[in-house]
């Protein structure tokens, strides 16, 4: 799976980060990316609203009975794990940022879009940030989805580690952070 682009969208739907990892012929203008971000924000909301009522109720009932495997994203090991150097991990230590399966915060919103040429994956945090990955492969494979969720959670870890620690950073403004840039590139590169 080759990642073409990673986007970060803030809680009010503004695009705060966009980076291409593959030089593609069809490149969106920055304005088009802004529109994409805003559209995604809206579509996530709409997707959660069109969830059939019956499903919503059963999901609610289900979440009360402890483990619901469908909501757990399995941990995918050795995925861009920066194992070389502890200091490269910022404040996270150990072999990898995390090593257990985890629950998705986005239960009824849009998570995954596929066309014949590409797939788009979306990871939403509890604070309303969205991390979006666009891959050059068309896939509906469950494994690919978990890989993408793992990757995007790691991008979130990097965000927490490098962007949040810059006191100059304004959450409404584009992310300008070399270390976030370089670590994200490393993460995507190791895929």
């Amino acid at each position: 799976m080759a990642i073409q682009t990673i986007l970060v969208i803030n809680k009010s739907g503004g695009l705060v980060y966009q980076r291409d990892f593959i030089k593609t012929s069809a490149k969106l203008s920055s304005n088009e990316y802004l529109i994409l971000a805003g559209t995604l924000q809206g579509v996530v909301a709409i997707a959660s609203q069109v969830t059939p009522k019956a499903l919503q109720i059963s999901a609610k009932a289900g979440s009360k009975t402890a483990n619901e495997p469908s909501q757990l994203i399995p941990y995918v090991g050795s995925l861009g794990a920066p194992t070389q150097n502890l200091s490269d991990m910022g404040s996270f230590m150990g072999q990898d940022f995390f090593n257990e399966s985890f629950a998705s915060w986005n239960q009824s919103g849009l998570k995954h879009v596929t066309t014949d040429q590409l797939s788009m994956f979306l990871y939403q945090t509890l604070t309303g940030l969205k991390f979006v990955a666009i891959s050059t492969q068309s896939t509906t494979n469950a494994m690919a989805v978990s890989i993408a969720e793992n990757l995007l959670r790691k991008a979130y870890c990097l965000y927490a580690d490098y962007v949040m620690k810059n006191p100059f950073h304004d959450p409404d403004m584009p992310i300008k952070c070399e270390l976030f840039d370089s670590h994200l590139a490393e993460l995507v590169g190791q895929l």
Partner: protein
Amino acid sequence: MVDSGLASEVNEHQRLQLQFQLFQESLPKVDETVYRMLLNEAVPLAIGVERSLNHLEEDSTDQLETDLNSKLTFESQELGASHKLLQEYMTADQDQQIRINTRLENIGFQLGQKLSQLLIFSNNPNLSFKDMDLLSVMKFVCRDVWKQVFGKQIDNLKTNHRGTFYLLDYNYKPIESFTLEEDLSDQEQKMMEPFLHVPCGMIRGVLASLGFEKEDQVTCQATLVEAPDSKQAGASAFAKSVSFNVQVLVER
């Protein structure tokens, strides 16, 4: 240490080192992230303090009624987000900037004073206080103080042996995650200023607690410099390092 053959001395040294390391590890700990945030957040705090002190001055010149009102609004109003406060530093006049920086130096100074006690009472085998001359005090700053606070040592220490020291840190931790362009604009240089006053105060504090305590005996200034290319290889994303220029007046 008793002079009893080189081999046993090395072993003894290693044993002490190990013991010290185990002791350090056994001490209570907190998360490093929290500490880094606390330290850096002191800067917006100092700017916020400056603002509210100015508010207070305005209040006292006003009449009693308005005084009461503005105080009430001040209590309820948020001081503002860190990044907004930091921008305020840029628009503050020079006197205010100086007061902000002095405030931060004082925080660093107090920390430095207490820190040297903390380090000295920890039985560090690398420390001997038999002949604590200026150079060994500076080495103590570079090695032990820096290691304790920033998790790394100063990379390079230069001196003219007449009281002038240059301490070079090629990757000064607290500003590690800041965005620094290759060509730092004057404005960006200016914005980094307050962050560098904390360690300057800290260096002075350590020196003061170790006998260099006369007023104006020690001055310390920090500037951002280009890291030498050779050292850059390890931290490619980071081109800026900090040089601390310490001047100590020594009587002779």
